[in-house]
């Protein structure tokens, strides 16, 4: 019944409501230059230093498509197992705003570059397939800054013209948890492909969230509201929860949900109306006459196909087959490309089982504590595998290994050196251990007698004493064996 348990439903007055969610994710294409100009796209540059005449829409300036961005979009489409459209069309989406220099955004409306695809989510109760409706290329707008001056608005055009991929999901998501999993999976796929860095803090990944509710068991969709431009997974989840409950309250109150665009107020944790359907912009889409339809050949697509790396789903399968990881472990290891690379580097030269446990356990905990990404790990994959080998060959115990690990976290030191320098090598010489054990038994004659008379629980006491006397260095397995004999 685990399936029943994880279903996300809203209960009101004996009614159960299901939440239906679709996402329009805006992912910034990882590229050196903009979609239709040669300006740089670096994040955090001084305002208006990455703006060409094209980006600022000077008279007579014309867009020229950046082939690299097209390749990135197609690669992403392949990663989403989607249909690549050999012919796509750029349209103009017309509206006035101070940070939209052309007075229109170049986007793809009727004929996107990528058609239907899918993303597989690993949920606690099994896999879930989320349909992708389409992916299209479009320009980002500039940025209006309203809080620098009481009267004036400042405009930064650095972002104007930067390439975005809008990835539209089908309304297949049913809970905030699924949204979390979906965004993470999408991000992971694009990071594997190198087509988007997925950096939500820098705005490289943001989403419009479409939410509607319906009584459980009904087939028809309810009226949806679109929550614009949410830029973190946490806020998406909060917004969905608030919005779904708001809609349920309306329905339970005998009112209807109006189709509208809403904003999520992160301070008040609520959504509020931005504009109704009646006030919706008429964008007057039409094909951009400055650009010919974008046509790509089979060879072009095949070439890109051949450049696609192993993606999370395939990698997970391989990790399970090749390394005998559990699905849970495999999911963690493939969740992002850096983790999987690190894992594979470690297991190249050391035991898989130990490596898995050490990465998921000690390493992740230590990184978390220091708020570090795996790419910033103070312990290199090479040194972690050396540590694991020291455990495996009995040079040190697991307990000592934790001490060594802590020191490695302070700076990427070779664990062998730490063991040597600090004299942490495990005592595995039976003769030396026998001497130690004799001493311990000698010092605890009374307890030894008790043990012999049947108080077997005292065995642990003796092990503890031996370990203590050895400074933790005694090989626990050998200690066990010898103690048994001696006692």
């Amino acid at each position, binding site marked *: 019944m685990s399936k029943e348990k994880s279903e996300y439903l809203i209960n009101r007055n004996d009614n159960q409501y299901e939440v239906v969610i679709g996402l329009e994710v805006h992912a910034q294409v990882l590229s050196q230059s903009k979609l239709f100009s040669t300006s740089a796209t670096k994040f955090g540059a001084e305002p208006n230093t990455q703006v060409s005449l094209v980006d600022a*829409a000077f*008279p*007579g300036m014309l867009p020229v498509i950046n082939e690299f961005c097209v390749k990135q979009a197609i690669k992403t489409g392949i990663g989403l197992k989607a249909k690549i459209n050999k012919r796509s069309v750029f349209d103009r989406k017309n509206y*006035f705003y101070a940070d939209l220099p052309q*007075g229109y955004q170049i986007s793809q409306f009727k004929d996107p570059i990528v058609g239907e695809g899918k993303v597989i989510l690993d949920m606690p109760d099994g896999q879930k397939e989320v349909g992708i409706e389409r992916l299209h290329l479009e320009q980002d707008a500039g940025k209006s800054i309203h809080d620098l001056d009481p009267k004036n608005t400042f405009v930064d055009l650095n972002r104007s013209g930067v390439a975005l991929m809008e990835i539209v999901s089908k309304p297949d998501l049913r809970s905030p948890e699924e949204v979390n999993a979906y965004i993470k999976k999408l991000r992971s796929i694009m990071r594997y492909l190198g087509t988007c860095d997925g950096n939500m803090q820098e705005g490289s990944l943001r989403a419009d969230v479409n939410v509607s509710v319906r009584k459980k068991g009904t087939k028809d969709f309810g009226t949806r509201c679109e929550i614009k431009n949410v830029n973190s997974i946490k806020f998406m989840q909060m917004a969905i929860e608030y919005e779904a409950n708001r809609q349920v309250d309306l329905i339970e109150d005998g009112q209807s949900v109006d189709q509208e665009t809403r904003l999520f107020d992160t301070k008040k944790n609520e959504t509020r109306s931005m504009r109704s359907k009646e006030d919706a912009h008429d964008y007057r889409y039409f094909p951009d006459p*400055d650009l010919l339809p974008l046509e790509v050949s089979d060879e072009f697509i095949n070439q890109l196909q051949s450049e696609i790396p192993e993606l999370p789903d395939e990698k997970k399968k391989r990790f399970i087959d090749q390394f005998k990881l559990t699905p849970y472990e495999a999911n963690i290891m493939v969740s992002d490309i850096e983790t999987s690379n690190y894992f594979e580097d470690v297991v190249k030269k050391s035991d898989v089982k130990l490596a898995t446990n050490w990465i998921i356990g000690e390493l992740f905990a230590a990184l978390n504590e220091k708020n570090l990404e795996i790419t910033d790990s103070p312990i290199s994959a090479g040194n972690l595998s050396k540590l694991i080998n020291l455990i495996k060959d009995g040079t040190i115990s697991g307990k000592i290994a934790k001490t060594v690990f802590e020191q490695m976290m302070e700076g990427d030191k070779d664990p062998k050196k730490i063991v040597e320098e600090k004299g942490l090598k495990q005592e595995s010489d039976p003769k030396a251990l026998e001497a130690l054990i004799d001493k311990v038994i000698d010092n605890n004659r009374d307890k030894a007698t008790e043990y012999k008379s049947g108080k077997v629980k005292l065995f642990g006491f003796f092990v503890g004493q031996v370990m203590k006397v050895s400074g933790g260095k005694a090989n626990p397995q050998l200690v066990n064996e010898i103690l048994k004999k001696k006692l």
Partner: protein
Amino acid sequence: MSDITKQTLSELVNNIKEKKLSSSEVTQAFVDRSEKSKELNTYITEDFSNALDKAKKFDDNPKLDLKLPGIPMAVKDLFCTANVRTTAGSKILNNFVPTYESTVTQNIWNEGAILIGKLNCDEFAMGSSNETSFFGNVQNPIDKNLVPGGSSGGSSSAVAAQLTPITIGTDTGGSIRQPASFTGTVGLKPTYGSCSRYGIVAFASSLDQAGPMAQNVQDCALLQEVISSYDQKDSTSIDFKRNQYSKELTKDIKGKKIGIPKEYRVDGMPKEIDDLWQKGIEYAKDCGAEIIDISLPHTNYALPTYYIVAPAEASSNLARYDGVKYGFRADGENLIDMYEKTRSEGFGAEVQRRIMIGTYVLSSGYYDAYYLKAQKVRKLIKNDFDEAYKKVDAILTPSTPSSAFKIGEKTNDPVSMYLNDIFTVPVNLAGLPGISIPAGHDSKGYPLGLQIIGKAFDEQNILNIAYAMEEKINFKNKITDWWIK
């Protein structure tokens, strides 16, 4: 050499190459005549002293192997010119000085020509009489208070009045050919994609095309040779093999098949125009061409189609003139108020009319009925030409349904103004090359033009036909210098 400004481009080039004339002498002559011709109002921005400096520099170090060595030239003010104000005939760009150069003008300067000024035109090239310019009417040198045509009215007037030996215009629906016809000059609208649109203030992107305007076909061919180039900065530029149009020019058009489309015999067309067309047919026959009757069945729909497609694109292209980044800005209470005031005060009535038409036809609920349908009709019009060109090499029509009219005569009747482009508009919709050559005079002594329409990329062929017919027609423009006191 007294009558420098009366010389053709080819004569001037030869005289400079043979060092019979210096660039300074030539430039000075055109500057002097321009100074005496202010009443024509052809210039929006004069650049005379810079031009004379450049001419002197040219003479100090003459590069005589160039195609336009030290030749002074004024250009339509729709071409962006680095460090020289570029207005598009509009108040909204009254103070706009580009930092960049259009590809077409750059090609011209690369061949040694010298900018002497920016020529008047209808605001954003929207007009057929040069009366929509923020900078005032342009006089046709043919007669006082006669329009020079439009939108390249400053260009046609300046060439006819010999204020510049040659010039360039832009043609979206007839804006080169109609003013050429009104002023007794030659104007070529090249195949769409032949001349780069980079740096040209856009009116309707899918129709706009720059082209040469000159006193004769030879000069026109030479200038076309200079301005046409494949340009990666314009995604609609086409990489095809371009001829050496002036060198390959020939009067031998024997056996060329020339089509006469019956649909161009429109209702109410003045007899003078019909007669001119008949004469043209005879000239073509005299040159050895074969005349074939053809049909372009969707001709009737061309003008309405054009007046959906062009305003639609314009409404979007002109959105960038919002007072935020450059150009004219009116103060406003807030952003929307500033937009409204800037655009209400910055754009003239005709431009506003077309922005509104364009906005309307693209609006949700109307898009399918207007814009989409117009695109379908546009395809049918192109198909008409494709069919015709299975039988003929070129098509001969009148350039305009009438000769030049008086200033103010049609300003209150936009539809009658739009009808001026009835013969030229289909050519833009089909993306084809078309040339207008002077072919006669009406009863008032005003010039009339004939249009030769070619296959795509077949500029050489229509230039050849024009060249051959030009000799037979032996047209003499009647310029009296009435404006020079």
